[in-house]
């Protein structure tokens, strides 16, 4: 399937400069010294991060490690207390609107609007990203079709399953053909079949769209299978960065990603006793209530 051609409205996005691969332009994301505090608690502590164009990058860590706070700064929701962020060469502090144009964001919660139909949810995002009226219908339908949602698109989202909502959110994020897709815990709360399903969709989209993917997860197996490179985050800082293979090999033959994580952080990923545990339960309840 082909997207209809995109004609960008004025000021719609950065100027295309062709396939440059050198210097700063090969970076999809470049962060340095990123810091955020909640009161006296330092959630993100001087994080440096470089994500290359076209790669799938995983930010791994237990609940409370600072992954979501980092993502929120990257997506311009939070203003860093120190440090800088550039997304595809654009400073997030100076040009937040321009950065938002290039990002597709799927938050941790199932956040499609349950009081609208699937199609309306996607159309809303097409409008918010200034997809020209003449192309809007085609793009909305193409996004829904790509996520296998053509048939239920006319139904209210409150009738959808968790896996369908996640796919719908991907359709929302993709209708703008973003350069950077940001996924915060994309498979939390999904059953194993839906999880695999969502990953297959993401992998296929990424290959065909030359898209950079940044995702957070605390599922080691997912990171191992789907990420080109990962960063291990613990207590607000990044402890190690590299491809899953290299990180495992550095500990010797037979090491798993869990071993790698334990080696660099002294803890396990499944450690849910931190403050995040209760928050997750609350969120799951909220989602359940909302979706009736």
């Amino acid at each position, binding site marked *: 399937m*082909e997207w209809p051609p995109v004609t960008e409205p004025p000021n719609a996005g950065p100027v295309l400069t062709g396939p440059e691969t050198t210097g700063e332009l090969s970076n999809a994301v470049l962060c340095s010294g990123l810091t955020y505090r909640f009161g006296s608690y330092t959630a993100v502590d001087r994080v440096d991060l470089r994500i290359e164009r076209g790669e799938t990058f995983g930010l791994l860590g237990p609940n409370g490690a600072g992954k979501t706070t980092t993502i929120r700064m990257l997506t311009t929701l939070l203003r860093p207390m120190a440090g800088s962020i550039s997304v595809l060469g654009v400073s997030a502090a100076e040009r937040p609107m321009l950065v938002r144009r290039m990002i597709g964001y799927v938050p941790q919660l199932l956040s499609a609007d349950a009081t609208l139909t699937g199609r309306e949810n996607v159309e809303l995002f097409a409008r918010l990203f200034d997809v020209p009226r003449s192309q809007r219908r085609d793009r909305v339908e193409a996004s829904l079709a790509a996520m296998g949602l053509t048939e239920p698109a006319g139904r209210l989202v409150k009738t959808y399953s968790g896996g369908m909502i996640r796919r719908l959110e991907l359709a929302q994020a993709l209708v703008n053909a973003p350069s950077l897709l940001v996924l915060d815990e994309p498979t939390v709360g999904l059953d194993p079949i839906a999880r695999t399903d969502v990953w297959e969709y993401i992998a296929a989209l990424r290959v065909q769209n030359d898209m950079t993917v940044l995702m957070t997860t605390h599922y080691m197996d997912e990171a191992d299978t789907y990420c080109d490179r990962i960063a291990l985050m613990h207590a607000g800082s990044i402890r190690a960065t590299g491809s899953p293979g290299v990180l495992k090999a550095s500990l010797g033959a037979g090491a798993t990603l869990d071993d790698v994580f334990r080696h660099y952080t002294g803890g396990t990923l499944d450690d849910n006793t931190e403050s995040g545990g209760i928050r997750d339960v609350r969120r799951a309840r*909220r989602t359940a209530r909302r979706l009736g």
Partner: protein
Amino acid sequence: MTSAAPGAPPAALADPAALPPADTAAAVVRRLASRIVTLCWVELRKMRHDRTELYTRAIQPALWLLIYGEVFTKIRAIPTPGGIPYLAYLAPGILAQSALFIAIFYGIQIIWERDAGVLTKLMVTPTPRAALITGKAFAAGVRSVVQATAVVILSAILGVALTGNPLKLVAAACVVALGSAFFSCLSMTIAGLALSRDRLMGIGQAITMPLFFSSSALYPEQIMPGWLQAISRCNPLSYQVDALRGLLIGTPAHLGLDLIVLAVATVAGVAASAALLPRLAR
């Protein structure tokens, strides 16, 4: 996998030297206007999908008119300008009150959307905060006008002599919408300060009744004690009621002043709640 993924245009890659220039003022205004239209569209779609709320909310104002209104008309306890029946004097007040009660709910709704992740996701799109607020204020206005229509019809059935002038009726609808837009912004501003639904429910209940009783919705300002008159003059609800009475039942009103107060209050409300919106995303 059931279908192939769409092939998108090549990923935009920014050359820092070739970034588009910063948005001009005209571009900013155009974007604001376009986003407001979009967010109003989405609110209308939501209302179309769930209309039960529109009906059930008409019950409370009906009770005010049928029970409180009928009883106080009979005992003639409240002096009215020109000696018009109290029910006629009361009807525009109940109209404004019912709109207020709808609007005050919007702060809770925006916190609810924050908790559901909907608001956060909208804030990562290139959409000015003021457009998100204006969309909600518009929705509050539309809902209030729908409900006001029910109250006007009920008043007419109860024998209140309302204007038949379509221009005045349209003007009254605008006043209702503008008042609700302001009160929804007030509520969303408080939401930006309170940040949690439980706190906001408490604050919402603590301010709606005082707003109502310190306005001229139920009784003329002249019979209020001095201190209450002073409060009433700072209360936008009094200006809304004044305008509605003037338009619907023809009592002497200060239409120009009323509209200016409501318009200025609404713009200030949009600005204040838009400035506080990022606090909700934290």
